[in-house]
């Protein structure tokens, strides 16, 4: 469903992604790990269409379409969901209005009638229960005054509402206590189906105890330097990133 080939991107003239290739098939969970500053969040932003910097090379194909040419909202309507590392507070915009607009835009894109108010509220209720979020959160303005954990849970709730084909979770685990982490992970596991995929970006292995990846990639200095099964995550947890850095540097030396 998603094929990334030799993707390069720079921000403010500085090369951040230096040639990334990655293929995600339906039903797969990919974990992307790596030290701070390796380009993980930039990759997520580029895939979601955030105009932060410039894509300087490579291609991204999503169900045969050139993803890089699509506007952010069209990507979203086409089933790409980005779980933000730092969800944005939007005072004055209610969660209900926000989600209703998003859901109906998606339906319109897919040629469906907008949901009636009562169907929509029913959907909200269902999904709230599914991801175990406090129903009061949904009555407030988007993320306004939410705690860090509440914001992350709200991301998972939105993911459930929008039912994406490809969800990219950008360090969704950062700043979560163990209970919140469990709720987030359970949410993901409930949404998971054979026909949708996840890219889980994380710094720590911890989240992967709950969301079991099919493939683990290590991103370092703008490149994927190692790809292996879920055991790689454990190895990283144990040994840290330094051995990878050394391996990479050695290979450059050679």
């Amino acid at each position, binding site marked *: 469903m998603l094929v990334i080939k030799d993707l390069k991107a720079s921000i403010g003239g500085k090369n951040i992604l230096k040639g990334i290739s990655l293929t995600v098939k339906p039903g797969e969970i990919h974990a992307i790990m790596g030290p701070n500053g390796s380009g993980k969040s930039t990759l997520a932003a580029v895939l979601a269409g955030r105009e932060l910097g410039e894509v300087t090379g490579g291609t991204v194909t999503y169900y045969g379409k050139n993803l890089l040419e699509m506007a952010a*909202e069209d990507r979203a309507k086409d089933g790409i969901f*980005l779980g933000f590392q730092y969800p944005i507070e*939007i005072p004055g915009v209610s969660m209900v*209005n926000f989600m209703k607009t998003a859901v109906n*835009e998606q339906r319109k894109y897919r040629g469906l009638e907008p949901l009636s108010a009562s169907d929509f509220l029913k959907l909200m209720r269902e999904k709230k229960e599914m991801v175990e979020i406090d129903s009061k959160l949904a009555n407030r303005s*988007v993320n306004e005054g939410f705690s860090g954990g509440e914001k992350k849970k709200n991301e998972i709730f939105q993911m459930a509402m929008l039912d994406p084909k490809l969800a990219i979770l950008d360090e969704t685990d950062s700043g979560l206590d163990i209970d919140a982490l469990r709720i987030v992970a359970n949410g993901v596991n409930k949404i998971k189906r054979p026909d949708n995929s996840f890219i889980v970006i994380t710094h720590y292995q911890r989240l992967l105890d709950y969301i079991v990846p099919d493939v683990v990639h290590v991103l370092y200095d703008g490149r994927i330097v190692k790809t292996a099964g879920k055991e790689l995550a454990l190895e990283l947890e144990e040994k840290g990133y330094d051995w990878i850095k050394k391996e990479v540097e050695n290979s450059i030396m050679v």
Partner: protein
Amino acid sequence: MNGISEVTSRYLYLYKENIDRISGMSSPYINSFRKGAFERFSAMGIPTKKDEAYKYTNLNIFFDHDYKSYFIPETADFIKAEEFRCDIADLDTLGIVLLNGFYPTINGKLHQLSNGVWIGSLNEAALKFPELIEKHYGKYANSDTDGLVHLNTAMAHDGVFVYVPDGVKLSKPVQVVNLVQSDEDMFSQHRNLIIVEKNAEFSMIICDHALSPNKFLTNAVTEAYVGENAHFDLIRVQNEHNAACKITHTFIHQEKNSVTSSNNMTLHGGLIRNSTYHHLGGEGAETSSYGLFLADKFQHIDNYVSVDHASPKCTSNQLFKGVLDEMATGTFNGRILVRPDAQGTMAYQRNNNILLTDDAKMDTKPQLEIYADDVKCSHGATIGQLDENAMFYLQSRGINKREARLMLMFGFAHEVIQNIKIEPLRERMDNLVMQRLRGELSRCASCMVKCG
């Protein structure tokens, strides 16, 4: 300033020409203010950009003009005015219509409700309740910085009078519909006096509308006295056309433990200046001053707010937000004054503005003047565009750019609107603002006779 400007002399002349006629129609007590006020106005003149309080507002466009009609209520029109009804669904109010600053003559000019509340014409009340008028009239409306307040005192003689006795809680808001209508360009000045006695509760909505396309200039003063432990909410909805200029001066005096709010919702108008003065005159008083303005074309919206913490342990909160489109310009001038003995003051002020085009302009001047030490005061002001991160957040959820912009603007505005306590009005405002933001005609259809 050297000598009297040409614009000012127009109004000096106007006074001299009409003062006998005006006095002839008014109560002696109201008349007793005229000469002094006229002298102060003569000394101060029509404000110019050289006056700090009008630094960014040019009044001459409206003041330097030959208005044809001034002070004469035309009885024929009153019938029309009486027929005017505001039809916001579920908004149950006690309606009053002022036409060109005058209270309608038909059906009597002063009513008493069963709970003892008096509503009616100020001019009539001044004759009927001289002791009340003497206690309150002219006591709160004063300004060292604005000659227009004195111009009003010198010449105004009618407007709305409301008296809410001790402990009476009026469940319905009073809605004053200020209509201006004339076949000729018109200048009018009215004067409202609101007395909310102790433990009473009262809210008032003032809707401004222009019913004919002429050039209108209105210079209105409202004085409100809010007694101990009383509650008073004032909401202004301004929806006039681009040839209308509205200058309002609102003075709210508060006694101990009283709670008030003021909310200026400006949707349309050529030039609008709202000056709101909050005088916290008793310990523990609280006030909130809100404002929202949406402007486009060549409109100019100026909000001036002064909160005077004259007593200890008072709380004030200001929130003013503006969205400026096309060539519109906006000004915010907010002042918090904490007097030496006003210990335990909490005062906050925020002004956020969004410029939508390169030709829009915003000048803001939030000010703190603090003479006591046990205070918590802060202010913040921003001028900018919609938050790019928020835009992307919405877009990443599949919401298109146009809709995302609208939602953010609406959210921006809603932060002010949500403070309106009267639900049907709040919903109506949300609605109107959404329509206005969508570029659809946002004339208060319900509140308007078809005025084009």
